[in-house]
């Protein structure tokens, strides 16, 4: 039993993830072509999967590690090692494991800062900053919830964050994590409950942006 499975108290039935195919919008044969080294197929698969890979890494990486650097590492590993997979059904699980390993390894290495240019690109990725109080308050709360979510137990954290990625159904999350759909649902439900409890314990911002401390 893995550490992840050992953390569960719910009924966990690990099932192999479904193969890439029409069910998730991936054209048949694309994965096989990518595994055989087709550059266009590799590129397409990366573009289709990089957002959830980022979410997995965000859930697993240390706070100080740079997500962009880590994603580049995963992209490089995908290019160099994808041919070692012998079953197309294993691709998503393999990508997730690469992402997890890379994110965890980041905790053992020093992350280099790359100056203002990097910061500028991050700012661009975030989109135009809101100028109103409501937008600033919402952004602050989003940052706070992201921070609180990062404190959830790992098994719950990953499922909760993956569900926030557009298009990530319970089934899609199950295919990535190798969990049963019912387990994914339970983890999301429990994770959200925990997140709400943590948020209540640590206080939540009111509409005017002030924090109200709640005592248990």
């Amino acid at each position, binding site marked *: 039993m893995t550490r992840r499975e050992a953390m569960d108290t719910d009924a966990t039935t690990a099932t192999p993830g479904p193969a890439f195919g029409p069910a998730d919008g991936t054209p048949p044969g694309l994965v096989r072509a990518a595994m055989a080294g087709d550059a266009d197929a590799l*590129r397409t698969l990366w573009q289709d999967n990089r957002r959830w890979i980022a979410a997995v890494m965000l859930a697993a990486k240390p706070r100080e590690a740079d997500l962009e650097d880590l994603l580049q590492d995963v992209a490089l590993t995908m290019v160099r090692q994808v041919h070692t997979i012998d079953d197309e059904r294993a691709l998503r699980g393999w990508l997730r494991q690469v992402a997890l390993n890379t994110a965890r390894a980041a905790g053992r290495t020093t992350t280099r800062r790359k100056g203002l240019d990097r910061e500028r690109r991050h700012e661009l990725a975030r989109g135009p900053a809101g100028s109103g109080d409501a937008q600033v308050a919402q952004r602050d709360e989003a940052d706070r919830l992201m921070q609180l979510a990062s404190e959830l137990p790992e098994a719950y954290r990953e499922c909760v964050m993956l569900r926030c990625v557009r298009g990530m159904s319970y089934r899609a999350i199950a295919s990535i994590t190798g969990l049963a759909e019912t387990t994914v649902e339970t983890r999301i439900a429990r994770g*959200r409950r925990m997140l709400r409890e943590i948020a209540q314990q640590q206080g939540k911002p009111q509409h005017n942006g002030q924090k109200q401390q709640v005592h248990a």
Partner: protein
Amino acid sequence: MNTHDNDNTRDHLDRDTLLTRIIDAEASAEDWAAFRAFAADEPEVWSELAEMQRQHDVLAGGLREAIAIADSIELPVHEHESVRPVARIGAVMQNGWSWGGWLAAAALLLAFTVGLPRGVGVVGGMPGTAPGTQAAGFSLGTPEEALDRYIDLGKQSGAVVGQSPDFIVLESTPLADGGGNEVVYLRQQIERREVRDLYRLGTDELGNTVRVPVEAGKALGVGAKAF
């Protein structure tokens, strides 16, 4: 973290699941009926639903902003072409040469990439190749003759500058009769090439060796590993 006692855990789990299904638009008619039954006894569950829905929306918005950087990361597919030959070379080295390692891989990589000077076959110097092989229309009696021929032809064409006078010892084993040593050494030839696409060897943040394009017109430092 969970403040509920064991007797209430099951109820809360069911309620949490229902809330999650509603938030995720996965609730069936039966789920809604069960939720309304909860709400009839505990009307505050409606505000709980509203709060959890709002929390999910805010978290999802924050996460989407955070991972948007992924859209700017493209796959370095140019790496792909350089990977497979190296992998093949690695397999050959494991089967053939005991001390091959990075050194032999580097030598073969050069042969794959820039080729050897015209008129010179790779004979005599490779393990398992018998001396006296006929290559390129002339006889090569010994590896030394082949090497001398390579240097001569290379100097004529300008592809070979010369041979380094220093031999680097890789391994030394005393002979059985005690009268000397068997020495495995590195002999270096100095060559010249005009290269349009030059790469230097670098290391990524995970310690993997990667090739990095050298900017056109920019000189490499002495001792740089390149191919």
